[in-house]
């Protein structure tokens, strides 16, 4: 007997037995199996299935390794091409939520759907409230209550940690300007700081601002920035909470001639 002969015989046995293979276990069963929550009889049934089913075996192995999976040979790659843009996921989510909420208001709803409606309504109210607050802040800025008046205000949004929405273009025609930075989750840190790194080499720190304080809505107002501090060109603005990088904003500053 050679190893090849033994392997062939085993495969023949497996192929014959596979013809009588029962239904695949559900994902819930696989997770319960991996967590050791099944009875010994159920475990034996699943193990007999795994011995004959490469698909379920691979799924159990992936479950054991999750979330630290590796791409197997033959899988399409590279990985960055496989992950859809977060922005599109978020847009789809926000598009669907109001529709679901409208549909669920008709007739009597189960408690889970009522909860969804309540969550959607909360999001809506929070959005309205935040918009009002931002609008008020903008007005206060323009009036000079928060910072110097008659200074243009630019808003920059980041998509969570290390996610850049795209290069924002800031065209300034006055000597000074204000920036309003949005961050997905400012957290709670003792110190917040902002640094401007050259967008060309992404290393040289051109400008740094310490002791920033977020508003109660998690917005950072950077007021009275002089165009002399940030010469025209591309920058990477990095917002830190303590030593943790909270967000990055890719910005292109373009200065017009001061009238």
């Amino acid at each position, binding site marked *: 007997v050679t190893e090849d002969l033994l392997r062939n015989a085993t495969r023949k046995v497996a192929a014959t037995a596979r013809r009588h293979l029962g239904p695949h276990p559900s994902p819930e069963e696989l997770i319960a199996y991996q967590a050791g929550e099944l009875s010994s009889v159920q475990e034996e049934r699943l193990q007999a299935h795994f011995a004959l089913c490469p698909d379920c075996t691979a799924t159990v192995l992936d479950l054991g390794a999750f979330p630290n999976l590796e791409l197997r040979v033959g899988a399409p790659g590279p990985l960055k091409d496989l*992950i859809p843009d977060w922005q599109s996921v978020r847009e789809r989510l926000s598009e669907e939520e109001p529709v679901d909420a409208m549909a669920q208001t008709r007739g009597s709803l189960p408690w889970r759907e009522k909860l969804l409606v309540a969550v959607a309504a909360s999001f809506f109210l929070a959005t309205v409230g935040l918009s009002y607050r931002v609008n008020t802040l903008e007005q206060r800025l323009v009036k000079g209550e928060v910072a110097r008046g008659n200074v243009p205000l630019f808003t920059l949004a980041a998509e969570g940690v290390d996610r850049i929405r795209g290069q924002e273009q800031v065209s300034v025609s006055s000597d000074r300007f204000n920036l309003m930075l949005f961050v997905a989750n400012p957290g709670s840190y003792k110190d917040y700081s902002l640094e401007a790194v050259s967008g060309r080499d992404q290393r040289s720190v051109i400008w740094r601002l310490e002791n920033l304080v977020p508003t109660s809505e998690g917005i950072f107002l950077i007021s009275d920035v002089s165009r002399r501090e940030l010469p025209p060109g591309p920058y990477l603005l990095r917002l830190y909470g303590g030593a943790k990088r909270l967000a990055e904003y890719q910005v292109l500053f373009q200065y017009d001639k001061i009238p």
Partner: protein
Amino acid sequence: MDDPDSMGRHDQKPAPGEMTPAELYQRYAPSVAKFFANRQFSREQVQDLTQDTFLSVLRGLKGLRSRERLEAWVFKIAANKWRNACRDWTTARSYFREGVADKPLEAEEDPAATEDRHRSDNPLRITLIREEHRLLREALAELSPPLQNVVLLRLDQNLSYEEISTVLRIPTGTVKSRLNSAVRQLRDALGHAYGEVSL
């Protein structure tokens, strides 16, 4: 910005309440995409399934509390999407139906011919190999289910000891001892014909 290929390799495991949707996406989207890519879906299908998975994850996020359940929950949603896709998509269905491991079996219908193709056309030798093969299959069929499982995973699915240990949820030492027991029983059944093959 970090290389997207390195996304998800974080040691910290914050609780769901401590993560924003964007952070949750950043942490688990690469793993979910790999899960689908490992199932032979096309690039576009991987993107669609990953997006669908996260829409379900984020819609249901409010109902989740404990840290321990988060990864299993994300995986469950991904696995359910995969199962549904296998039912819905022709390509996935054909992959599922044909089964990767089934393909070589068809080519190995005549083990004696495979074994002896390059040696000789001696009818007596071919007959002996066929007989050996029949005896082997009978001996394999006589093994107890726990021994059959480890032999099938080792020889049919080409798994390592560690992988078998993960799949069967038994220590690696138990895997090795079961394989040794299987070899002993096969040797007893086949006598000297078994030779020195180990698993």
